[in-house]
């Protein structure tokens, strides 16, 4: 019935190295969650291009093959721990499913799940196995979801705003947990967040996304030291000095992706925009150790 095409994510190209943590940062509506879902082929729309893990193109796999990939090679942690768990199924059962669906026996699954719960720092793990999600606090639920994501020691974990639905104090705990886990397991992680602070906490490389496009990709340190893209700069100015301070909103709105602005998608909100910005779309260009797409990158 609907004939409008929305390009939520457009022309994105990046690499995550083994054991690395790559952050994708952007405002809500910038298409970063869609990107997360696309990576694991759970995005309801069409995805074209290549998603390579160890040289295997996920987009070329059959439904069955990708199903076997999910959970074991690539997994995802969602933003809302309370809705991401099935409310009418016991926590233990949901956790064990990850194992049983990938060929483990029930008893193995149980033992492994128990172990996992301990690993992610849930006390009284045996009791927790028998509880329902609503009986757990938000932080606990997120720990369970993290446990599911790392259960089979996957090659890549996508963490989609893993902390933004949680209380500030819990946020720190979960971030710590993720940090420890990725170090001890040597996980490759893609962290999706709107919060530069969170990205700084966990990651070594970072990609800034705006309106479905990557505008700047590079090592964390250098981007933090000198943000090149005007949007990155704007984001940087939003970082609160402590976790207790709230993020300051950026003036203006993310554009409607069904009808993106011509030229550089950021130009309506860009203080440096010139005529060329409204007409031509800039390409990602390599500048030192990073990629930036801005017509005026050298000028400002």
């Amino acid at each position, binding site marked *: 019935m609907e004939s409008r095409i929305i390009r939520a994510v457009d022309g994105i190209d990046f690499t995550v190295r083994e054991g690395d943590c790559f952050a994708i940062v952007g405002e809500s509506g910038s298409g970063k969650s869609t990107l997360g*879902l696309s990576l*694991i082929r*759970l995005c309801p729309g069409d995805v074209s291009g290549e998603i390579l893990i160890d040289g295997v193109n996920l987009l070329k796999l059959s439904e069955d093959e990708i*199903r*076997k*990939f*999910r*959970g*074991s090679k690539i*997994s*995802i942690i*969602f933003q*809302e721990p309370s*809705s*991401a*768990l*099935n*409310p*009418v*199924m016991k926590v233990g059962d949901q956790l064990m*499913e*990850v194992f049983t*669906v*990938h060929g483990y026996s029930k008893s193995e699954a149980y033992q492994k799940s128990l172990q996992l719960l301990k690993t992610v720092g849930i006390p009284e793990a045996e009791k927790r196995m028998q509880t*329902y999600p*609503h*009986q757990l*606090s938000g932080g606990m639920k997120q720990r369970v*979801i993290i446990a*599911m*994501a790392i259960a089979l020691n996957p090659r890549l974990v996508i963490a989609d705003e893993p902390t933004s639905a949680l209380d500030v104090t819990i946020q720190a705990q979960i971030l710590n947990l993720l940090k420890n886990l990725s170090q001890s397991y040597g996980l490759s992680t893609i962290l999706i967040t709107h919060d530069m602070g969170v990205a700084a906490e966990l990651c070594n490389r970072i990609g800034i996304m705006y309106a479905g496009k990557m505008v700047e990709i590079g090592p964390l340190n250098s981007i933090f030291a000198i943000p090149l893209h005007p949007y990155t700069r704007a984001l940087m100015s939003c970082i609160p000095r402590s976790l207790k301070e709230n993020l300051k909103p950026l003036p203006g709105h993310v554009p409607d992706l069904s009808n993106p602005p011509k030229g550089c998608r950021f130009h309506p909100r860009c203080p440096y925009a010139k005529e060329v910005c409204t007409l031509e779309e800039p390409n990602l260009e390599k500048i030192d150790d990073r990629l930036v797409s801005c017509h005026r990158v050298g000028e400002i």
Partner: protein
Amino acid sequence: MGLCYTVGGKPVLSALKYFFYRLLTLAITLIGLVTLIFILIRSIPGDPARVLAGMMASEEDVNLIREQLGLNQPIYIQYFIYLKNLFTLNLGISFRTDSPVINEIFARLPNTLLLAVTSTCTAVIFGIPLGVIAASKKGGKLDFLLSTFSIAGISLPIYWLGLILILIFSVELRILPAGGSGTPMHLILPTLTIALYLMAFIVKITKASVIDSMEKNYVITAKSKGLSERTILYKHVLKNALIPVVTIIGLQFGALLGGAVITETIFAWPGLGRLIVDSINSRDYPMVQGSIFIFALLYALVNLATDILYTFIDPRVRLK
């Protein structure tokens, strides 16, 4: 209807308090209802004593009967006597049959319940799977067929359907009895008539509920774990999707009791609905009051049962 939602494992209302609250509202509703019926039935013109005595009876006989029935007392006294008796669960003596109303009701009630249960079960057994199929094949030919069936089913006048089924199965094919009760064969047509409507309804809401649940985040979580669509449908979605379905089936079961008037008329089913209509038409006040009271009580019990069923399928709701 108020449910006791738990937050972090602790009930919002204590179970005991909740129970008393339910009981109190039920009592208020029932007293209001019997009062309404008391007023309504007495507002209908027509003299029960005259009906009992027969059209050609003498005025003296009619007066005598009126006295025997206690209808010569002031209306408020009749009302208080009625309420007083009700508190001791005494529903009175039927004008028409001279036997206790409660006996008459219990002679008919099992029939009404039997029909309600068989048709609900049939409808649930076929309706829920079909609803799930329609949802999982959303947009397909089967879904179109099932949706068409379901909307046609709820738009069909049930009395018309009943007549047409009688015409086909009892008169033309002569394989099923058209009415009456007693054997399982007698159950088939009335069950079919009601079940068809109910099934159409259940298909519709099950489909909607399943589709709704399919869009929930936990489904994506399950997919990300590598579960197949089928497993997700049966292990994750169905149980969640059934929660609203159960409520609606509970409500429909209540509505079935109400609709009994029509189905019992068509199929000569000796149930409570028919009894009430006959009692209204002969101004058998105690019988009308008593049977509607029992009807309402049943309705409330079904609602309560639905709530209890909730606690089994939805762990978030617990009455401890």
